[in-house]
């Protein structure tokens, strides 16, 4: 049940974020859908104790795959579906916590969240790169045939 609410929340907040990022009206639902799938994979991962970083990695893999798929179907840049979709995974809260504990003079917690933020940002980039490369290879094969 809490999984369902979490996924629905991701859908609504990513759609709302897509508005703030000026996504065209016709693609708002798609961006929200990408975000919901990402949220689903992330919540499933953390529930099965895969850890925040690995769950983020799997979630962004799914998000990037969908974003590339939509980009192919609608012939638009990948960014349109990707940027809003990865926002639930992106370590914005981690950056806030890093700075917050730094101000609170709790350097141990601050360092922990800094490292976690960098790790998540790193695996996000890695997952996007893997999908970029995969779709490039598939795209080249299609052109040859």
């Amino acid at each position, binding site marked *: 049940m809490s999984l369902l609410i979490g996924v629905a929340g991701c859908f609504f907040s990513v759609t709302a974020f897509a508005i703030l990022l000026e996504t065209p009206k016709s693609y708002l639902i798609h961006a929200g859908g990408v975000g919901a799938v990402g949220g689903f994979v992330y919540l499933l991962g953390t529930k099965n104790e895969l850890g925040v970083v690995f769950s983020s990695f799997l979630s962004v893999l799914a998000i990037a795959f969908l974003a590339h798929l939509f980009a192919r179907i609608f012939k638009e840049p990948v960014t349109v579906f990707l*940027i809003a979709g990865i926002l639930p995974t992106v370590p914005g809260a981690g950056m806030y916590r890093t700075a917050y504990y730094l101000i609170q003079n709790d350097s141990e917690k601050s360092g922990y969240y800094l490292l976690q933020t960098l790790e998540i940002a790193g695996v996000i980039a890695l997952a996007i790169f893997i999908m970029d490369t995969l779709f490039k290879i598939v795209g080249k094969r299609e052109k040859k045939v």
Partner: protein
Amino acid sequence: MDYKLVIRTAVLAGELMLLSGAETYRVEDTMNHILKTAHTKTAEALVFRTGILATIDNPDIEPVTMMRRVKNSGTNLNRIMQVNDISRKYCAGEMPLKEAYERLGGIQKKQYKTGIYNLATLIIPAGFAPLFGGQMPEILLSAAMGALLALIITVGKRWNVNGFILDTVSSFMVAAAVFLLGAKISGVDLDIVIISAIMPLVPGVAITNAVRDILQGDYMSGNARVLEAFLTAAGIAIGAGAGMWIAGVIIAGGVR
């Protein structure tokens, strides 16, 4: 061939994309495509987070170089798509240079009404609360904080407040309001509400683009974006910390 118009078109396209938060390599790529249509011996574009340089040179002309300082202004996917569309049509020969330049200049900025942005600012915290483990009370309180945030941002934008100050003031008000309301309501996890409520402010796009830029080898832009992201995060944290402190003082009954 009007070399000056080619380079002007390329720089304008690059500026619009950079203003809209496109990745550095994508901006350089688009500019290089446009510059190549001049068929000169040298055609080069160099893009930083804060500025653009482009140059073309051929044996029969004087070299032309153009530079543009670009100020940061958030993310606008619609504008990136429109620039992409125009540059693709121009490079494919479907659109004359003059028309491409004019259409780039006429790209609209906003596409939704202010009310829609405010509604979105309200929905984002409410939607994020369950992801951080919040239940119904947290969701409702987060939505209320979203409404407060929308109000502050609308007023701040109207008064042209600097982005860093606006983030700090917003998170200050939100944190103070959460603590003051939280003192009246029991059984609400205030940490979840604060984290959810500041989600519209946190620099998620900046930190992702920063890592992508660095992996592409655009170290200057990547560093600038990392700095941008951490400055925003610091502003939010300072505001939230001060807000919690003030709320604590008020609840405790003033400074003794």
